[in-house]
């Protein structure tokens, strides 16, 4: 992977993609009639939310993989997805209130979608705290995998919340029924932004995987040095 698509090239592609997305958001997509300029927060808010949900799905896959095969790579993958997913989920909780305040007149309300997204953020926090506070690495990996699998139940409920219940949060733009949907240029801006965010997510996850590999190597050499000094 490093030879076919080196990290530096990955970073350059990500930055170029993000620049294209920014151009589409501000210069290509039309201004929304009722909300005006502030509606442009929608593109980064929705793209961050979809990426955060995907990240939790990857934690779920990595956790199942680790409990099944007990491979360190699966655990590193889940841990990396949790760390990067936490960053994206934080962006959702930051950009959402900044859109809500001028549109609804309030920063936050405890409706189903907002509460479940907050719960998702807490699940990321719980996963990462567990990794930090359990000293035995094997035990931490097993306990985190259990949180990763059990917590995943929040993701489909969070995604479906605006379809199942009447919420303050806007109705879905995809399969939202009559009256939902977007201008075709808004769709282009949204999907290009999501693509750029996925590329950024993959880049950060790769960086985390490299960090995890370094950490294991350092820990192995520390043990070697300890045993050679003790001998």
């Amino acid at each position, binding site marked *: 992977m490093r030879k076919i698509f080196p990290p530096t090239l990955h970073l350059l592609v990500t930055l170029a993609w993000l620049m294209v997305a920014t151009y589409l958001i501000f210069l290509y997509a039309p201004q929304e009639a009722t909300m005006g300029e502030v509606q442009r927060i929608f593109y980064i808010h929705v793209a*961050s939310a979809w990426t955060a949900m995907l990240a939790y799905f990857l934690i779920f896959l990595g956790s199942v993989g680790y409990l099944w095969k007990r491979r360190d790579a699966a655990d590193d993958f889940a841990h990396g997805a949790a760390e990067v997913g936490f960053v994206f989920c934080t*962006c959702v909780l*930051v950009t959402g209130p900044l859109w809500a305040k001028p549109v609804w007149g309030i920063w936050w309300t405890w409706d189903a979608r907002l509460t479940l997204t907050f719960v998702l953020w807490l699940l990321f926090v719980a996963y990462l705290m567990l990794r930090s506070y359990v000293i035995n690495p094997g035990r931490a990996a097993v306990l985190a995998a259990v949180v990763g699998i059990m917590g995943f139940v929040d993701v489909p409920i969070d995604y479906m919340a605006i379809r199942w219940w009447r919420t303050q949060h806007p109705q879905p733009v995809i399969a939202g029924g009559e009256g939902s949907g977007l201008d075709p240029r808004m769709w282009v801006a949204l999907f290009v932004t999501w693509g750029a965010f996925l590329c950024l997510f993959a880049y950060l996850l790769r960086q*985390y995987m490299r*960090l995890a590999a*370094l950490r294991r190597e350092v820990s192995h*050499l520390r043990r070697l*040095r300890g045993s050679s000094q003790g001998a």
Partner: protein
Amino acid sequence: MVNVYLVLAYGLLWGIFTVYAWVIHGRQQQLEKELVELKKALGQQ
């Protein structure tokens, strides 16, 4: 007129991503340095 909420949302988003990328890069550099030192120490023994 520039919308303050829009500027804040984009500013904070890129701020969060930049800080995380910078932190992860710093952690990598620290480990790479420790790795070189450990290899050197083990090579001398």
